[in-house]
């Protein structure tokens, strides 16, 4: 493959910057990079998993939220080829970030991913007509393609036969019959991948005359480039013509004068031939019809009665929502409760290893850093894994079985009212257990704006880490009075959960009308046939999610916990601490065990107060005073950045209570009884408690969540936006509660 001559005289404008494909080393060499591509629900990921097994890597395409999955396959000769699992697509004219990536990779616009040497195009043989639409576009790109006819077992069972040779003749590409789920035909496919596949010479698409003429004039002006076959430029020209100005990639890669002319031509076509933007589609479908009619005989077709029968129950007007509620209850319960034993176990193991490793190190700053910084940070990361694994197990089963699309079908109306898609329900529900798996679950929402809106509101769902804070404050300050058949503490707890939901609905509605407004997403969704889940695929997705979380969010969480450790440990206390240390030494010398114990707690408290975290808490006091919070709560707000439940142990340290928990009555008493030495009033009152709880409902505190938002949106913009608007909301709401409450005479 030769590069174009530098400064070629024919190029007026800036040349297209195109990624060059890997040069083939010799004629009969196996492809280096194989892309697996197909429509959604074609069985693409199942095939990818079957071919690559555990040899998979997950990354991100730069600058977008689309995940890049790669792996390697062993070919019959023993050689390896790299496999890219391209996102499911319907067309080369993209309508989503996923489809844009596919187009960019195939047209060579994606500079970090060279165009593949071979495309394995996967189709569901039962839906051949629809799936061949994209195939036609690909064939005309002039790249080597193998067609994998998937779900041949289903076809056989339904009496559908495919004349494979006829199909090969008509399409000009090799065709392999497979059943990815059962592992049938994969040996043939591997052999085919290794063979030297020639690009098809066929052209099928029937372009309307007016369009053909315009495309021809445009493509002549696109610079020639070795990476793109001559014919691919038709699609590039069409993309330029259809672009509504939102396509950054096209704009970046095309000469500006061609871009301008494309806009003018599109406007002229709008006037002359209003339907031109879709005229070619019908023609392409006609060509596909002819091919399918020649190759497929339905024998005595038995339609999919099973799908209809199941759907009659699962999407029934009454039973549908009931079954949905039961299923969601089970999912929620398992993320919320079943993960607990595993989380406790991890917690214990971390504590044990902290104790063990700590024992090996001499007392001092290094031991403290290792035990309270590093091991604690690793522990925080790992305790999320059981919830993530359980949630993604269920999501895997629901997706693979085909139920997920039905769940969205049932919930679409309700979620649509706030401008979200039906698929936002499961991520939001899971966020009641923990926003981290919830945010990771937004991956099933294909519209980018909907997905980001869902991510932005997920942390408003009261997660399980807020529960200890609510429990401590309600236990200490909300009197156990019966109101009808409910108690005041119960009502307060419910109100906090409800407040989060209301905030999420309001924020989603506002975001969809402002920052994330624009575009009219098409809420067309396929309801795929029901299938038995592929346990291997479910296992792989659980593993992949957990590994991605630990590797990519875990590093941020670890860094944050080391920083927080430092803030809470340094400086080591100054004169106050030295004074308590002397008393402690005296008490120890005189064998006053109880006294020494009390002094140790006091020392921990004094040290925390004098640390950077304590100073930040005091520094924050003027800002949080209007909310009713004193510097002690300020310290708790700082340490809550590690995890909200740390608030409880911080309060215990600040009030010299040792390691009391949320249900400790002595800590509750201490909270109630402590007086402010300056004013002689209680530092914490029922009104302060309510204000604080409202703050915890709305504030963005959890740095692990921020780390996951960063990873899932692939930018710092959204997490920073989240920190700002959530904390502004929390401050405002607590201000209204506290000041309003005082005006009304509460204390």
């Amino acid at each position, binding site marked *: 493959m030769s590069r174009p001559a530098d400064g070629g005289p024919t190029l007026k404008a800036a040349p297209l910057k195109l990624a060059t494909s890997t040069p083939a080393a010799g004629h009969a060499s196996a492809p280096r990079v194989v892309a697996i591509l197909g429509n959604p629900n074609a069985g693409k990921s199942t095939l990818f998993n079957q071919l690559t097994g555990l040899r998979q890597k997950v990354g991100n395409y730069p600058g977008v939220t689309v995940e890049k999955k790669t792996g390697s396959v062993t070919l019959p000769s023993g050689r390896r080829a790299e496999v890219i699992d391209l996102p499911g697509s319907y067309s080369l004219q993209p309508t989503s970030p996923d489809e844009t990536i596919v187009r960019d990779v195939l047209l060579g616009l994606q500079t970090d991913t060279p165009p593949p040497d071979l495309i394995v195009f996967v189709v569901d043989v039962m839906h051949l007509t629809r799936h061949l639409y994209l195939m036609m576009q690909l064939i005309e790109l002039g790249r080597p393609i193998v067609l994998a006819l998937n779900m041949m077992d289903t076809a056989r069972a339904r009496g559908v036969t495919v004349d494979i040779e006829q199909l090969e003749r008509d399409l000009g590409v090799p065709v392999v019959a497979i059943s990815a789920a059962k592992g049938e035909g994969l040996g043939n496919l591997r052999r085919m991948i290794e063979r030297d596949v020639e690009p098809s010479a066929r052209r099928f698409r029937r372009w309307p005359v007016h369009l053909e003429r315009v495309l021809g004039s445009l493509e002549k002006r696109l610079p020639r480039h070795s990476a793109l076959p001559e014919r691919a430029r038709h699609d590039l020209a069409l993309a330029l013509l259809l672009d509504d100005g939102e396509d950054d990639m096209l704009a970046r890669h095309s000469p500006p004068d061609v871009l301008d002319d494309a806009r003018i031509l599109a406007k002229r076509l709008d006037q002359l031939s209003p339907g031109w*933007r879709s005229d070619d589609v*019908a023609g392409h479908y006609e060509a596909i019809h002819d091919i399918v009619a020649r190759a497929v005989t339905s024998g005595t077709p038995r*339609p999919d009665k099973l*799908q209809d029968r199941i759907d009659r129950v699962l999407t029934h007007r009454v039973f549908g929502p009931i079954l949905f509620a039961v299923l969601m209850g089970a999912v929620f319960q398992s993320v919320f409760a079943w993960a607990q034993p595993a989380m406790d176990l991890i917690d214990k193991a971390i504590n044990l290893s902290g104790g063990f490793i700590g024992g090996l190190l001499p007392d001092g700053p290094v031991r403290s850093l290792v035990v309270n910084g590093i091991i604690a940070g690793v522990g925080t990361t790992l305790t999320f894994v059981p919830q993530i694994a359980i949630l993604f197990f269920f999501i895997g089963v629901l997706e693979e079985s085909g139920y997920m699309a039905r769940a969205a079908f*049932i919930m679409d*109306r309700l979620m649509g009212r706030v401008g979200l898609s039906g698929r936002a329900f499961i991520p939001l529900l899971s966020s009641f257990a923990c926003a981290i798996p919830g945010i990771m679950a937004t991956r099933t929402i294909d519209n980018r704006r909907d997905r980001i809106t869902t991510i932005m509101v997920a942390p408003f769902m009261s997660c399980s880490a807020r529960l200890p804070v609510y429990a401590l404050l309600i236990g200490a300050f909300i009197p156990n009075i019966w109101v009808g058949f409910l108690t005041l503490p119960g009502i307060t707890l419910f109100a906090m959960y409800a407040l989060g939901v209301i905030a999420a609905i309001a924020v989603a509605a506002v975001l969809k009308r402002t920052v994330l407004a624009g575009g009219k997403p*098409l809420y067309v*969704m396929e*309801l795929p046939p029901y299938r038995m889940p592929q346990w291997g695929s479910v296992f792989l997705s659980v593993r992949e999610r957990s590994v991605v979380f630990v590797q990519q969010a875990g590093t941020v969480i670890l860094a944050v916990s080391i920083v927080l450790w430092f803030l809470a440990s340094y400086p080591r206390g100054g004169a106050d601490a030295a004074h308590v240390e002397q008393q402690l030494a005296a008490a120890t010398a005189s064998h006053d065990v109880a006294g020494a114990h009390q002094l140790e707690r006091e020392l921990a408290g004094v040290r925390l107060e004098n640390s950077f975290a304590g100073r930040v808490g005091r520094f924050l006091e003027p800002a949080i005073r209007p909310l009713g919070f004193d510097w002690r709560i300020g310290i708790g707000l700082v340490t809550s950045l590690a995890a909200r439940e740390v608030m409880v142990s911080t309060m215990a340290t600040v009030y010299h209570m040792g390691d009391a928990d949320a249900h400790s009555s002595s800590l509750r008493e201490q909270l109630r009884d402590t007086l402010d030495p300056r004013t002689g009033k209680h530092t914490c009152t029922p009104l302060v408690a309510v204000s604080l709880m409202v703050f915890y409902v709305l504030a963005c505190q959890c740095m692990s969540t921020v780390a996951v938002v960063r990873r899932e949106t692939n930018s710092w913009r959204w997490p920073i936006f989240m920190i700002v608007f959530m904390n502004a909301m929390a401050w405002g709401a607590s201000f209204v509660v506290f000041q309003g409450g005082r005006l009304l005479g509460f204390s």
Partner: protein
Amino acid sequence: MNEFPGEAPTIAIDAMQPGDSGVIARVDAEPAIVRRLMELGLVPGTELQHVRVAPLGDPIEVSIRGVHLSLRRSEASRIHVTPC
């Protein structure tokens, strides 16, 4: 395939009853949406069946060439069929 004045009357698919079938006559929407709907197989001249309505009344499920699609009523009201 094109619809001429005076041809058989058409109805929007959100007005169909579950079980009804029709041949797609035309799709009235913004050009980009028309293109995507057609790429998904909703091409004029193709037979379409209304399958069911979601429990909350929206969206609706249609079947075309054996593929089942969920469409919001706002989109379904733009697709017109000649009942058969």
